C-alpha cells in the first residue's frame, strides 16, 4: 500500500518535473535547426516559476468557470497521466481506467478550456475554442482505433497491461505492419492533440493561425502557469504513450528500485528522442490551413483502420 | 285456365311482354320529347294488358286491381303531368343526346341478349305460362337505365325511370304472378309520390336554373 502510494507520487513527480524539460528541448532543437542559439532547455522552468509569482489579471466578464478551469485542466491531465506507466509497467491505478478513460479525461480538460476561451467574451477566445473543438473531434477516433489496434495484440485496453505484457512478450502476438501503422497514426494524433506544427503553432500569436494560444489568451499569472504546465504534461503523456506502448522495452516489470531507476532513465531517453523528432518535424513542415488539417488527420484515421484490418488479416 | 291451351296462353303473354320491349326500343329511337311520353303511355297500356291477361289466365284477381291502377296512374296521370311540365316549361322539344341513336339501339340490343343470358338459368323456375317475362322485364329495366344515361333532359330521365318501373312491374306481376296486394298498393303509392316529388323538383329547377337540362347541373363537383 505504502509502496503503491510512493510509486504514484514518484510517477506524478516524474511527469511534472520532466514535462517542462521536454518543451524546452523541443524549442532548443527548433532553434538549433533554425541556426539560432535559442534559450536553454531549462527556460520553461524559469517561465513557470515567474508566472506563478506574477499577479493575475482577470477579465470582469468572466465567471467562476474561468478561474476553476486551470485547476480542473491540471487535475484531469495529471489524472490521465497517472494511468500511463513511466518506469514501472504496472501502475497502481491500472484498474481505475483504460485508454478510453485517458482520452476522455483529456477531453474533460479540453471541454473546460473551451468554456474558458468563451468566458472572457473576446473574439479570439471564441475563435480558438471553436477551432480546438473541431481539431479535437477529428483526432479522437484515430486515437482510439490506433490504441485499440495495439491493445488487440496484448489483449487489453488498459495501458499498463499492454505495456507489461508487451515488455514481457507474454501471450503477445505482434506483427510489424499493424504496429507500425498504429504508431504513425498515434504520432499524428499527438501532433494534433498537443497543438504542434503542422496542426497548430505553439510559437505564434497571430490570430489567423493560433488555436490553443488563442483559447488561453486571457490567462495570466499562475493560471497561465497551470495551463502551460498542463499542456506540457499532455505532450509528455502522449510521447510516453508512443514510447512505452509501442516499445516498452527497458521498463521495470517488478517493483525493484534499481530496475525502476533504469526504467526511468530509458524512458527519459525515449521521450527525449521523440521530442527531438517532434522538433525536427516542426522545422520541416509549415503549418497547415485549418481546413487542410482534416486531410492530415484523415490519414491518421485511415492508418489506424488499416492497422486494425491488417491485424485481423494477418491472423487468418 | 279459362279453357285455353297453356301454350297459346303463354304465347299471348309473351306477345304482350314482347310489345313492351318493342316500345322501349321505340322510346330509345324517338327524338321528340312528347312522343317519348306518348310511347311510355302506350307501353303502360301494354303492361296493363299483360297484367290483365295474367290475372285472367291464372285467376289471381288482385292482379286486376294492379292492372287497373297501372292504367290510372301510368297511362293517365303521370303522362299528363309530364305533358304539362313539357308545355309549361316550354322545354325545347328536340332531345339532347349523350349517345347517338344508332349506337344506342345496338347497345340496347346487347342489353337484351345479356338479360336473356343472365336469367336463362332461372327461367326454369318460372311458371310455364310466363317463362320469358322475367328476362324481358330485366331487359326493360336495363334499357330504361340506359335511357337515363343516354339522355340529358330531366323529363327524359323521368321517362327512363318510369320505364324501369314498368320493367319491375312486369317482373312482379307476370314473372311472379303478382306480389301480395298490400305490397302492390305500397309500390304504386310510392311510384305516385315519386312522380309528384320529381314534378315538384323539375318546377323548382326550372324556377332557379330556368332550364331542366340536367347537364347544366354540374356545380357540385370536386
Amino acid at each position, binding site marked *: 500500500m505504502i509502496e503503491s502510494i510512493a510509486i504514484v507520487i514518484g510517477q506524478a513527480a516524474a511527469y511534472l518535473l520532466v514535462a517542462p524539460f521536454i518543451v524546452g528541448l523541443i524549442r532548443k532543437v527548433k532553434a538549433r535547426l533554425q541556426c539560432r542559439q535559442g534559450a536553454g532547455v531549462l527556460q520553461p522552468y524559469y517561465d513557470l516559476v515567474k508566472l506563478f509569482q506574477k499577479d493575475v489579471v482577470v477579465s470582469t466578464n468572466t465567471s467562476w468557470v474561468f478561474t476553476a478551469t486551470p485547476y480542473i485542466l491540471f487535475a484531469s491531465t495529471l489524472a490521465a497521466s497517472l494511468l500511463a506507466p513511466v518506469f514501472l509497467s504496472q501502475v497502481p491505478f491500472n484498474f481505475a481506467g483504460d485508454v478510453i478513460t485517458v482520452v476522455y479525461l483529456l477531453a474533460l480538460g479540453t471541454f473546460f478550456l473551451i468554456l474558458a476561451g468563451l468566458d472572457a467574451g473576446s473574439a479570439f477566445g471564441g475563435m480558438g475554442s471553436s477551432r480546438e473543438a473541431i481539431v479535437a473531434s477529428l483526432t479522437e477516433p484515430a486515437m482510439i482505433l490506433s490504441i485499440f489496434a495495439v491493445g488487440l495484440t496484448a489483449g487489453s485496453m488498459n495501458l499498463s497491461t499492454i505495456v507489461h505484457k508487451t515488455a514481457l512478450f507474454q501471450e503477445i502476438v505482434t506483427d510489424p505492419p499493424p504496429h507500425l501503422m498504429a504508431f504513425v497514426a498515434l504520432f499524428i494524433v499527438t501532433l494534433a492533440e498537443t497543438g504542434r506544427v503542422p496542426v497548430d503553432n505553439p510559437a505564434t500569436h497571430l490570430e489567423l493561425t493560433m488555436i490553443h494560444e488563442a483559447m488561453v489568451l486571457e490567462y495570466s499569472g499562475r493560471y497561465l502557469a497551470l495551463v502551460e504546465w498542463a499542456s506540457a504534461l499532455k505532450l509528455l503523456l502522449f510521447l510516453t504513450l508512443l514510447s512505452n506502448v509501442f516499445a516498452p522495452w527497458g521498463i521495470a516489470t517488478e517493483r525493484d528500485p534499481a530496475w525502476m531507476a533504469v526504467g526511468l532513465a530509458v524512458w527519459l531517453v525515449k521521450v527525449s528522442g521523440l521530442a527531438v523528432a517532434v522538433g525536427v518535424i516542426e522545422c520541416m513542415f509549415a503549418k497547415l490551413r485549418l481546413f487542410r488539417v482534416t486531410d492530415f488527420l484523415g490519414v491518421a484515421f485511415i492508418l489506424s483502420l488499416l492497422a486494425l484490418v491488417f491485424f485481423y488479416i494477418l491472423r487468418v | 285456365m279459362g279453357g285455353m291451351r297453356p301454350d297459346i296462353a303463354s304465347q299471348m303473354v309473351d306477345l304482350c311482354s314482347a310489345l313492351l320491349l318493342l316500345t322501349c326500343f321505340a322510346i330509345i329511337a324517338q327524338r321528340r320529347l312528347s312522343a317519348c311520353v306518348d310511347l311510355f303511355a302506350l307501353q303502360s297500356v301494354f303492361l296493363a294488358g299483360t297484367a290483365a291477361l295474367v290475372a285472367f289466365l291464372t285467376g*289471381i284477381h288482385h292482379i286486376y286491381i294492379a292492372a287497373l291502377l297501372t292504367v290510372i296512374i301510368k297511362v293517365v296521370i303521370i303522362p299528363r303531368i309530364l305533358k304539362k311540365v313539357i308545355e309549361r316549361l316550354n322545354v325545347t322539344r328536340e332531345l339532347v343526346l349523350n349517345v347517338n341513336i344508332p349506337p344506342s339501339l345496338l347497345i340496347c340490343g346487347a342489353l337484351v341478349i345479356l338479360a336473356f343470358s*343472365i*336469367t336463362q*338459368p*332461372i327461367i326454369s*323456375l*318460372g311458371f310455364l305460362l310466363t317463362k320469358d317475362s*322475367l328476362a324481358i*322485364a*330485366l331487359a326493360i*329495366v336495363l334499357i330504361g*337505365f340506359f335511357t*337515363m344515361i343516354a339522355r340529358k333532359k*330531366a323529363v327524359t*330521365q323521368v321517362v327512363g*325511370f318510369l320505364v*324501369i*318501373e314498368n*320493367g*319491375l312491374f312486369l*317482373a*312482379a306481376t307476370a*314473372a*311472379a*304472378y*303478382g*306480389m*301480395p296486394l*298490400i*305490397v302492390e298498393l*305500397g*309500390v304504386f*303509392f*310510392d311510384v305516385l*309520390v*315519386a312522380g309528384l*316529388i*320529381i314534378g315538384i*323538383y323539375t318546377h*323548382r*329547377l326550372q324556377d*332557379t*336554373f330556368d332550364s331542366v337540362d*340536367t347537364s347544366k*347541373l354540374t*356545380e*357540385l363537383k*370536386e
Partner: protein
Amino acid sequence: MDVALIGLIAMPLIAGLLSLAMRTRRSMERLQCAHAAVLLVAMSVVVMNVAEGSVITIGILLRADALSAFLDLMLAFVGATSLLYALGYMGEESTRGHVLHRRYRRFFCLFNLYLFAMLLAANVDNIALMWIAIEGSTLSAALLIGFERTKAALEAGWKYIILSFVGIALALFGTVLVYYASEHVLGVSMEALRWEDLYRVAAELNPTALKLAFVFVLVGYGTKAGVAPMHTWLPDAHGEAPAPVSAMLSGLMLNLALYAVLRFKSIVDRAVGADFTEPILLGLGLLSVAIAAIFLMVQRDYKRLFAYSSIEHVGIALVGFGIGGPVGVFGGLFHMFNHALAKSTAFYAAGMVMLRRGHKTIERVTGLVRQMPLVGGSMLLATLALAGMPPFGLFVSEVLIVTGAYGRGQWMAYVFLGLLAVAFATLLSQVFRMALGEPMEEGVPVTDRTRRFTASALVINLTAMVYSGTHMPGFLHDLFLPMTRLFGVTVEIP
C-alpha cells in the same frame, strides 16, 4: 313490449303530423322533446327485451330480432339527439328569418316522417314492405336535402332523387327475384316475403336466383349506403342538406341501407355459402375506402369532408363483413354503431360552425377551439374518433377488422392499413387547420336558447362515444351474440 315496439315506430309518425299543428317555436320544442323522450324509453324497453333473448313479433308485419333492435338502438338514440339538435339549428334559422315558421313546421314534419320510415324499415318483417319503407325514407330525405332552396341544394337534391330512385328500383328488382325464388317453396303468399320464413327455408331456395337477387340488392341499397362506385350523390347531399339532416343521413340512413344489405346477405349465405357474398363486399369496401381517402385529400368544404369520411367508414364496415368470421362481423357491426355516434357528432359541430361563420370553406375556418370550446372540442374529438384513435370505439373495430384481414391474407391487411393511414392523415390535417390556431373571423354567435339544445345534443353524443369506446355496455354485448349468429358465426366476448 309490443306496445313499446309499436310506440317506437308510431311515435315519429304522430309527432310528425302533430308538428304541422304547432303554432309557436316553444310548443314545437315541447312536442319534439317529449317525442325524443318517448323514443328513448320505448327503444330501451325494446332493446332490453331483445337483449334477454326474446324476438318481438307483432302479427305478420312487425318483427324485432337482435339486428333490428341494434338498428332501433342507433335510430332512436341518434334520432333523439338530432331532434334536440334540430330544435336548436332550425330554431336559429327561423329566428334569423332564414326560414319562415310555415317551413319550420314542415321541416319537423318531414324530419319525423323520415325517422318513422327508417324505424319502420328496420322492424318490418317483410322484404317488400321494408323496400317500401326505405323508399318512403328516400322520398322524405329528398325533400329534406333540398330544404334550403339554394341552387346547390336543389342540384344535390335532384341528383339524390335520380340516383337513389334508380338504386331503389334495382333493389326492388332484387326483392322480386327473392320472392320469385321463395314462392316456389312457400307458394304465392305473404310468407314468401317474411324474414322468419325465408330464414327457415333459405337452404332450399334456388342459388342462382339468390345470387342475382343479391347483386341487385347490393347495388340498389348500396347506392343508398354510399358504397363506391354508387357513392357519388352522397357528398353533394350531405354537403347541402341542413346539418341535422346530414347527421341523420350519415349516422342512420347509411346504417339502415347496410342493414338491408346484411339481411339479404344472411339469407343468401344460408343458401349459397358466405364465400359468394364476401369477396364482393370486400372488393367494394376496399374501393370505397380508397376513393374516400383520395377525396378527403382534395376537400375544401368541411361538410363534404365528413361526407367522404362516411364513405370511408361504410367501406371499412363492408370490409369487415367481407372478411367474415367472428372478428370481421363483430368488427363491422361495432363499427357501424360507433360511426353513427361519431359522425352525427361531427355533423352537429359542423352545423354550429356553419351557423357561426355562414360558409363551409375549410381554408377560411380557424381557431374553433378558441372561439367555441365545446363545438371545436367536440369536432376535434369526433374527428379523432373517425380517424381511428382510442379511446373511441372505431379504433377497436378497425383493429379487429385489420386482424381479420390479416387472417385472410397479409397483403390485404397491409393495403387496408395503408389506406387507413392516408385517410387518417388527410382527415386530421384538414380538421386541425380548422380547430386550432386563432379565429380569423368573428361570425355571428347563436342565441343561448339555441345553444341549450345544440350543446346538450353534443354532450350526450360525446359521452356515449367515449363510453362505448372504453367499455361495451352489457345490453349491447347481449345483442351482439345473436346478431353474429345471424351470419353463422359466434364471437366469444370475454
